[in-house]
């Protein structure tokens, strides 16, 4: 992806620091509660093939908890349907331990003004990292 007037190259986006907590919405159709732990989150939970930032998406979406005054409630205030999703809280540090992934602020990738300041993208996903990512999500679901 090249930079445009409204979409800078992803390397120009601010880094989300490792001490933060990410909120990731997980569609229920990608979760099998009865499966063994570690295998409950399915690969469809994360884009598998569009690893490269594109003209309308830098990567997998998440929210930085520290930037949300009321935490997850701010997400639900923006879109009540998100209550139907499973909310997964993942420390950024854990994500960064998956070599190759980066977490950057990306207000360009969300349509809700009230959430732009807290929106982040997980950049650098590959199929192999996707598999590790879904295992990581699984660890943080009760």
């Amino acid at each position, binding site marked *: 992806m090249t930079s445009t007037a409204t979409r800078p190259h992803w390397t120009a986006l601010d880094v989300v620091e490792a001490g933060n907590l990410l909120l990731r919405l997980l569609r229920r159709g990608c979760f099998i509660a009865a499966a063994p732990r*570690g*295998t409950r989150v399915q*690969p469809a939970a994360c884009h598998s*093939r569009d690893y490269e930032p594109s003209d309308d*998406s830098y990567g*997998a*979406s998440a929210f930085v908890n520290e930037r949300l005054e009321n935490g997850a409630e701010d997400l639900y205030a923006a879109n009540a349907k998100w209550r139907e999703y499973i909310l997964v809280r993942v420390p950024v540090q854990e994500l960064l331990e998956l070599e190759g992934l980066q977490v950057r602020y990306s207000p360009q990738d969300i*349509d809700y003004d009230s959430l732009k300041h807290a929106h982040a993208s997980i950049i650098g996903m590959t*199929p192999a990292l996707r598999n590790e990512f879904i295992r990581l999500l699984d660890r943080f679901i009760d």
Partner: protein
Amino acid sequence: MTAAGTASNQQPLLDERRAYPSAAETSLTEPLAAIRQQIFILARETAEPGWDFERGRPIDAQTWRRARVFIEQLAEEVQPFPEPHISASGDGYVHIVWFRQGGDRAVLEIGRDCFWSFLSGDRSQQDREEALPTVRDAYPKLRSFLAGK
């Protein structure tokens, strides 16, 4: 990111006769009927851009049909029928997942192209992935997976 469920309900999202069989075709086993119903629902949910919360690519009726036909043929060729988990990915792929003992997973992704993946349940083996020339090439791989190989 766009709101989930923003697709218009004012017009048909797909040709339902193509994506889902008529009642007359239902000489089905119960699991297969349930899978057809699930595919029908997923096809409706994923027909428009932005269907997920991440600017998801739409999945067209033809892609869902390919997935349905694959599963129907699987039900004819492999007994007992290995019932899969079906879901959709925001990058426009249908995901069909099978489990076996130990939590190992096989994943068939059908979309613009086709991929086969193995995810080790206990990490005793390496995950693997390969592109398949056609969806049909997944049959021998699935048989091998279900046989524990």
